[in-house]
């Protein structure tokens, strides 16, 4: 008898997958199953949280020339 698990299938490139796994490593309540290099099954209510976290992490990882300019001016 097969088993069905409710969730959200996330398709992304491996770098994003690594980021999601690292977000999950803090609380372990997001990722339900690690399917393959580009697919993850995550908990439905956590999807928005993951998207927000991902956005802020990616924002941290980008170079912001605008702010740099402001700092130099001061």
């Amino acid at each position, binding site marked *: 008898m097969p088993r069905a698990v409710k969730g959200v*299938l996330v398709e992304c490139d491996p770098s994003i997958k690594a980021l999601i796994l690292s977000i999950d490593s803090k609380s372990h309540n997001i990722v339900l199953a690690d399917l393959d290099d580009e697919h993850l099954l995550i908990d439905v209510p956590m999807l928005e949280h993951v998207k927000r976290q991902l956005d802020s992490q990616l924002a941290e990882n980008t170079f912001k020339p605008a702010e740099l300019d402001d700092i130099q001016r001061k």
Partner: protein
Amino acid sequence: MSVPKFRTSINDFLEGLPETVLIRLFYSPATCLAIFRLLPAMAQLFIMAMLFNDKPVAATDLNLWVQEGSTSKQYDALEKLRGMHLVKQSQGMLTLQKTFRAGLRNALSGGDHNNSFGIPCDTEDKHKVDIEFLDEHANNQWELILHFMVGTDTGKIPNNGVLSLLRHSGLMEGSTPANMRITNAGFQFLLQDVNAQIWTLLLQYLNMSEDLHMDAVEVLHFLFMLGSLELGQDYSLAALSPTQKIMLDDLRDYGIVYQRKSSSRRFYPTRLATTLTSDTGALLTASASMDSAIAQKERDTGFVILETNFKVYAYTDSPLQIAVLNLFVHLRSRFANMVTGQISRESVRKALSNGITADQIVTYLTVHAHPQMRKSTPLLPPTVVDQIRLWQLEMERMKAVEGYLYSDFSSKSEYDTIAGYARDLGVMTWEKPNKRMFFVSKEGNQQIVDFVRRKVHSGA
């Protein structure tokens, strides 16, 4: 680019009309000429070949006119002609629609008795206005609408007709002028060039006029007539039908025509009207095309410099241009004749989340590039263009589908039957046969559950 898209959309509108309505349209030579000008070059060639030839032409004869390898263009052109009921095909012979043939001949060789090209006023206007005045008037009226859309505080609010058109077309939402806000469609509208913007609004006006029980044929006649009028000439209201007089009031609000008073017996078309159906290369008279070429040089020279370091310098003092730039540029300082800013990840993401696409940004920057930029090829720094596109891709880095993951199948054959069923239904989004797992979208899950139950029951 946006222009061809909108050209085709007025064409699409015409193609959508029933044949009887189209034939009524063809009674006006001005409309025939305007329709002719809106057609692709290949279709124009075919029409010219048939125009002064009363006998039907064999469809195979057209092949001689077309280079080998352009058959798809030939097909498109013929489709278009048939779609607009301009050409009839029977037993391999093509005939030009009778009324259209008469109308276009009339337009080209004169002898128009319908006054479809408008009647110039024969009396001298005591308050004569010149072309500069008309240009300024058209610009002011049109920019008033655009300023209102971007929310610049000019202290003036467009007339109710304009407001309801903006609301009706979904470019803005809100019930009172004070709380009207621009929508995503509105942002995209702002990034188009003026000609495309006018057509967008006029097509909406056409849709709205049907609701108001105005005759679409008369509305179209009038629009196409405006496209063939001469700038700086005053025209008499005498030839207009009652519907068209009502339209005149609305068009005055958009700056497409100028009337000194609403009771005035004459009107002037502005440049917005006379360029409606023309490319710059296909203006009605030599003098008009000269004028517009000069005006283009003065008015439409680009003002935006984009550097490889994502910095933007825009030589403009127009609040409207600045507001549009502000949609996707992080503006830093403003000087008397220029603004400086920076394209950043945040500023582009803000634009993207407003529904503006990376391509629209790139097109806008290309069209408005400063002459200094035109010396370099490619025009825009490729690094910046690529990065803007990458930022758009980044917005879509994660694809999420809600549904159910099936696993723990007891045998390979069980997996194969159920997975096969899901695949046939087209509800499977992912599978991994060697681990015996697959994923089904939420919508398709119930069918799979039922299928599994039936299987278990019949098996037990």
